[in-house]
């Protein structure tokens, strides 16, 4: 069974925010509700390099959001993708406070007036419930059904990866030794978010060549504070 994972090359990410925009467009959700790009600022010691860190659901092996969900709306597929069942989510917000990655968002209730232009009646399908990155599972599944390979064929790959202008995002099966994500993690120095919590994130970051300088800058900032 595949274990879908994402690898983000921090040296290539230039903070253009095409990933949250394409995600919002493709999944019909507000931009930055499923993913965002954190601007960590300019690091003097690293030759005034600027570090951007894209952040979204880490599709953990042991997801803290899953165990707290009171309705079973959050569940995990065998391939590791953590999914929200829109029909079961009640928008209680428990998963938002349980997620250590700041990766979940409660969407505001949006009522469409029955007589409004171009709308049906009642509430919009995604209003009032929680949303987060799903690794564009519909694209992955439909691509697999057509014999495509997620991560290599665009139609089977998440929107953010396809539209990443810097080529910083990579997607694929990390259990497959020959996949690109597997090779990138194996051959490079990597980092993960919230490692101390032991949730087993499926999002890996390739640290830039000037990483040591970034760390030293960060330490200096802490010392100054």
């Amino acid at each position, binding site marked *: 069974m595949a274990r879908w994972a994402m690898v983000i090359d921090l040296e290539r990410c230039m903070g253009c925010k095409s990933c949250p925009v394409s995600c919002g467009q493709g999944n019909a959700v507000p931009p930055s509700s499923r993913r965002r790009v954190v601007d960590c600022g300019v690091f003097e010691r690293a030759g005034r390099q600027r570090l951007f860190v894209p952040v979204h659901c880490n599709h953990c092996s042991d997801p803290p959001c899953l165990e707290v969900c009171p309705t079973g709306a959050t569940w995990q597929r065998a391939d590791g993708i953590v999914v929200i069942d829109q029909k079961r989510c009640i928008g209680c917000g428990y998963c*938002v*406070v349980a997620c250590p990655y700041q990766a979940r968002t409660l969407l505001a209730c949006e009522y469409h007036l029955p007589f409004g232009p171009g709308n049906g009646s009642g509430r919009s399908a995604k209003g009032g419930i929680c949303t987060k990155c799903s690794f564009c599972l519909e694209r992955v599944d439909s691509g697999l059904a057509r014999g495509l390979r997620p991560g290599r064929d665009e139609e089977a790959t998440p929107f953010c990866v396809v539209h990443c202008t810097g080529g910083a995002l990579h997607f694929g099966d990390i259990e497959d030794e020959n996949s690109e994500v597997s090779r990138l993690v194996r051959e490079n120095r990597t980092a993960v978010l919230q490692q101390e919590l032991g949730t087993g994130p499926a999002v890996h970051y390739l640290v830039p060549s000037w990483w040591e300088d970034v760390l030293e800058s960060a330490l200096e900032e802490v010392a100054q504070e």
Partner: protein
Amino acid sequence: MRVAKAVPQASWGLAAAANLILGGLGASLHLCALVAGAGRPDLPVAPALALAGFIIQGLETGRPRQGYLVLSRLTSGSWMSREAVLGGSFVIFGALDWLFGHPLLTLASAVSATGYLAAQGAMVAAARGVPSWNRNRVPLLLGSLSFMGGSGLLLLLKRTPSDQLYAPAILSLVVLAVDALLNLRSDSDGLGRRARALAFALAVHAIPAALILAGLAGGGRMLEGAAGLLMIGAGAWIKLRFIRKGMLRPLVLTTVETPGGRGTLPGGGAR
């Protein structure tokens, strides 16, 4: 390396705090009345408070009409499901106990009230995204705050004088004072903050305790009423601040250490 600061959590607001405050107040009032031997209540205040908490909470959820789905994960581990079921049981058994006063109903309402209080604390403590909530002693803190409010409410509502009424109030105040001291010790953000915390701890623990002691010494109904009001207000206010001031965990990026040291294979970058 810290890539994103802690930000205030925004998904649990006033309604969630109201559920914790009113539910805790109702369940602890019921238990305090039983422990203190205050007898059967004249009014179903305790279950009504818990019910009001649930109704207010329902207003905050995005899809309240699908609320029945919380029953589906009772056995698989969500503390919110357990809280809902135990709280619902307390509302039902508490109301039936008020109506019929059967010993079995009293027992059922007491058990469900205890479970409800425990589930409330465990529910908050299970939120791993908020470090100040995700601590072992949070259930004890919230439970003590509930008992402080519940015993304060009992002091206000009591019909007959009884020294036993003071027992739960004093016990909860002692537990809270210990917790406040522990917090004070771990608070290293500066003397000003410590001084404020100390002043606050004195205000919410020492003053009610002094009022209760004065009441014990025959100080009269007014002093007890003042102590009761202060305890209810302080308990509710601390809970409200505790929930609303919760901060989401900052994002920390840590390099994955490998046996090779730098994590790069010989010969290797991919770029």
